[in-house]
């Protein structure tokens, strides 16, 4: 058996250029399959992590209409206010908590250390909505919000960078030259599904951030939670109709905000992933077929060129099935090489896409095995006809072939 493999390999290496071009289709096909599965798997894991990190009953209220973003851009009048948030929490029965949000990036200072981080103004229920336990101290409360207190809660990364091993509770940090007292430390959350460090954050009462840091009266991305995962659609409806009413939108006017649920957001990602999978899957299938036809074509040419050789082999006693096996092995070895190269290509490609596109990819050994198996099947299937044709040659005619 290894002897046959050696013979097949030698025949393939005889004309490297031709062999390389022949397997191109297989390489692309297998590469596409590997990439597609890696990205699909990665998307699935990302979505699962996202749902886990944010919860299935979390709603996101964005003060921008998604349908108008294209024409108006991301700047435009922000019409969402804190009063909207109160109203939602009070009047929407399917909504349990609302946390108005407003956010900026700035430098925070402790002693002679500074650290640029995300400073987020949040409501008193933020940590409940986000299911984010405290490590020490307390969270921001309603009183802090009411009196526009200069207090803050730190994420683990900020603590590490400004305090090291020192306990930050009751210490003072400066933000925009304003002193803030640390009242609590969040437990570690880790990376967000999109790769951002969720622990790199300073939380303050939203009123404080509005008034003292950003000097605005609107609120930005606001979180809400529905009473249950199932109730989220009802919650979205309630929020939408309430905001439309409060913003005095006429029936023919579009929303000047967007309310989405985590789950629907996740399914959008899954949809995108599915589309990409179908796309890559189509490319993969077509490529594999093209690759297979390429192999069949080249094997037909090759067996014709080697008619004399086949005649000689038959004259010394090769049976039909010996010849069939010889060329079938050649076709399969060819396509296997294509499979191996394709796997390498697929791995490289999916790593590149995940690096540049910030889309996670997960390599699955099963997909590698399946793709490699498929490349072999293509070789056997498309190599069969030329091999059989070769095996059916008449030795006398074959020996006479020029």
């Amino acid at each position, binding site marked *: 058996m290894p*002897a046959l493999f050696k013979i097949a390999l030698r025949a393939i290496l005889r004309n490297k250029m031709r062999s390389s071009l022949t397997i191109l289709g297989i390489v692309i096909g297998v590469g596409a399959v590997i990439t597609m599965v890696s990205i699909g798997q990665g998307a699935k894991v990302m979505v699962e992590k996202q749902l886990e990190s944010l919860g299935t009953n979390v709603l996101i209220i964005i003060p921008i209409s998604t349908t108008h973003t294209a024409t108006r851009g991301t700047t435009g009048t922000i019409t969402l206010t804190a009063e909207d948030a109160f109203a939602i929490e009070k009047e929407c029965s399917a909504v349990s908590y609302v946390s108005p949000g407003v956010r900026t990036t700035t430098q925070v200072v402790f002693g002679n250390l500074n650290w640029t981080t995300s400073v987020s103004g949040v409501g008193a229920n933020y940590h409940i909505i986000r299911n984010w336990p405290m490590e020490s101290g307390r969270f921001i409360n309603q009183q802090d919000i009411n009196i526009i207190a200069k207090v803050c809660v730190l994420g683990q990364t900020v603590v590490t960078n400004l305090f090291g091993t020192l306990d930050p509770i009751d210490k003072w940090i400066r933000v925009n030259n304003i002193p803030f007292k640390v009242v609590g430390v969040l437990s570690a959350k880790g990376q967000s599904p999109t790769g951002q460090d969720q622990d790199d954050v300073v939380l303050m009462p939203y009123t404080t951030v509005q008034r003292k840091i950003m000097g605005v009266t609107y609120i930005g991305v606001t979180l809400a939670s529905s009473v249950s995962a199932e109730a989220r659609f009802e919650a979205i409806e309630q929020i939408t109709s309430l905001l439309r009413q409060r913003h005095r939108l006429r029936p023919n006017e579009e929303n000047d905000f967007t309310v989405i649920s985590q789950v629907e957001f996740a399914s959008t990602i899954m949809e995108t992933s599915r589309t990409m999978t179908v796309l890559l899957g189509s490319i993969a299938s077509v490529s594999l077929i093209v690759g297979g036809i390429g192999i069949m074509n080249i094997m037909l040419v090759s067996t014709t060129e080697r008619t004399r050789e086949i005649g000689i082999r038959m004259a010394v*006693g090769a049976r*039909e099935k010996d010849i069939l096996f010889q060329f079938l092995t050649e076709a399969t070895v060819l396509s296997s090489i294509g499979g191996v190269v394709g796997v390498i290509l697929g791995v490289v490609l999916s790593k590149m896409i995940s690096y540049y596109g910030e889309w996670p990819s997960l390599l699955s050994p099963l997909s590698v095995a399946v793709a490699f198996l498929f490349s072999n099947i293509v070789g056997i299937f498309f190599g069969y006809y030329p091999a059989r044709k070769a095996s059916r040659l008449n030795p*006398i005619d074959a*020996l006479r072939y020029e």
Partner: protein
Amino acid sequence: MQNIVSLETVCKIYQMGDVRVTALNGISMTIKKGEFIAVMGASGSGKSTLMNILGCLDRPSKGKYYLEGVDVSQFSKNELADIRNKKLGFVFQSFNLLSRTTVLENIELPLIYSKKLSKIDRDRINQIMATLGLMEFQRHYPNQLSGGQQQRVAIARAIVSNPTLLLADEPTGNLDSVTSTEVMNVLNDLNHNMGITIVLVTHETDIAKHARRVVVLKDGEVLSDTPSQSPVTPMPQTL
């Protein structure tokens, strides 16, 4: 001595569209072990067809072919392939070696198909190569060898599985006169000292003189079958 080949009114008819061509028209002959036969005749006389049938590359349309007492006339393709592998050896005018394989690999080719290749086989191959003066060339490729050397490789391949019959179709056709004599001496040597039965096709009487029996064909029939007029005494060769 037993007949190793017995042809009984063997006919070969080709149907080409509307035309029927009778290549062999009732040939009967026997060959004993150890004979050295030259088959001669004009082109179209049927000598190639006769060689094809003797060599089990083709089947007779009518008549019987007994090889070592076994009727192979209606053998299947696979059975014929098996016979070719184990009982027959071919030497062709154009050598017909596999061009991108070494001399050694060319010689051992029949054994590869009979799935053997034990140490015994290796020894045998070495012995054959030594006898034919090919040891130093075993890792060379055919295109690195002269015509005479290539034909010797072909002969080595033909005898590697110890065949009953060696069939040579114009083996010196592509060689100059000196090399031709050399190759014919090899065949003579094999026939005399190793007792290998040889059937040789040629159209040159000089070459036919090396054989001890000459069969002349004309129009698909045996015209004459006589012992050779002036047999050439084989010279012991050290190559």
